[in-house]
């Protein structure tokens, strides 16, 4: 059995072997410590590839178009940030570009590399670095917040002009659901168990992951 300290309250406890979709919760504070997965690598990889395709379409195709008094305008996700920049709000433009384009893109890319690399354990050390970077990007990847923001923006504009949703909008919606599927199926614990240790030793237990990190 693997010993672990709860992230939220530091309680030391053992994680029993979990059935598929079973959850181990902290005995003291209730935080989810581990989840049992049927297929911790192939399923999240499939979702990540699908999410990448949706992400590329969402960012290259027009998000929506607007027509008023014979004039037409379209915008992409990046166009939202660009227009902010051109109107003189450079810092806000950078934040929008980071949360709507850079962070989701980097998050996906890192996950893709990690999931491909761990298919043949042991994965080299830099894969761990990638996984860490992916976790860093996670809270800043705000596509679902952006979608709700677009909805509110559309309502505000709808009083002034006719708005036509574009392909990019549907792709962004699909991306939100696919990314959620990736995060639910991914198991960082299993990934870490397949990554080479910092001192150069192989993860002795990639065939026997329960022995990893056990306290003697």
């Amino acid at each position, binding site marked *: 059995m693997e010993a672990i300290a709860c992230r939220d309250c530091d309680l030391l406890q053992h994680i029993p072997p979990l059935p598929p979709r079973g959850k181990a919760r902290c005995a003291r504070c209730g935080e989810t410590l581990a989840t049992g997965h049927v297929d911790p690598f192939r399923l999240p990889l499939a979702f990540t590839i699908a999410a990448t395709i949706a992400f590329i379409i969402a960012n290259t195709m027009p998000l929506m178009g607007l027509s008023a008094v014979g004039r037409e305008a379209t915008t992409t996700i990046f166009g939202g940030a660009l227009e902010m920049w051109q109107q003189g709000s450079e810092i806000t433009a950078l934040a929008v570009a980071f949360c709507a384009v850079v962070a989701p893109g980097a998050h996906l890319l890192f996950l893709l590399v990690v999931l491909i690399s761990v298919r043949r354990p042991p994965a080299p050390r830099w894969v761990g670095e990638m996984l860490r970077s992916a976790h860093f990007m996670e809270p800043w990847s705000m596509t679902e*917040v952006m979608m709700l923001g677009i909805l*509110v923006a559309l309502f*505000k504009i709808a009083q002034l002009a006719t708005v036509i949703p574009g392909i990019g909008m549907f792709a962004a919606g699909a991306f939100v659901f696919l990314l959620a599927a990736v995060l639910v199926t991914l198991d960082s614990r299993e990934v870490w168990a397949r990554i080479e240790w910092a001192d150069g030793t192989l993860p002795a237990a990639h065939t026997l992951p329960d022995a990893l990190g056990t306290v003697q």
Partner: protein
Amino acid sequence: MSAETLSAAEAGLLSCTTCHLLSRPADPANLGHCPRCGTRLVFRRHNSIQYTWALIIAATIFYIPANALPVLTTTALGSTESDTIIGGVIYLYTSGSWPLALIVLVASVMIPLGKLVALAYLLIQVQRGQVRNRHDSTRMYRLVELIGRWSMLDVFVDAFVVALVQLQPLMSVEPGPGVVFFMAVVVLTMLAAQTFDPRLLWDTPRERQAFDG
């Protein structure tokens, strides 16, 4: 809880903040790095209380111009109109969409304020050394961490309204100076939530003294 509960720190074990591997430091004075992923090991985040206070004080200061200054300036047929965040909520409400008005009100006003109050409350409890209800406090912290990003909503609304409504010379919308302050409030409160170490809520006073070096 039963008397046999033992935290990793009490057992002299370090939990890696990156990969969650437990390890025992060879030298208590020099904790070193995680043997698996190489992250620097610490019992508790260094100066977590001070950093979190600094971030929420900065966010509180920015919260004032964020609400007082306009976030959008609309120019239509020669007339100019400026809207603050609350002005945007009122506009949505009066134009017949109270669900959207409510969403923006919750995301832009209640969540940022609630986060500042909740984090200050948690910090004061930890500093007084007496955490009243650890379960509720931990739950409150998780909620703050989970919903913080939704405050970015208004920034996205403004960006896309600005991007689409560029029909010069008939009508154009420009971002106002309030947006950047509001964005700063959201980013600073998100960082404050990440900096706060929830394990401090569960530490005994003796443990706290040992870590807060």
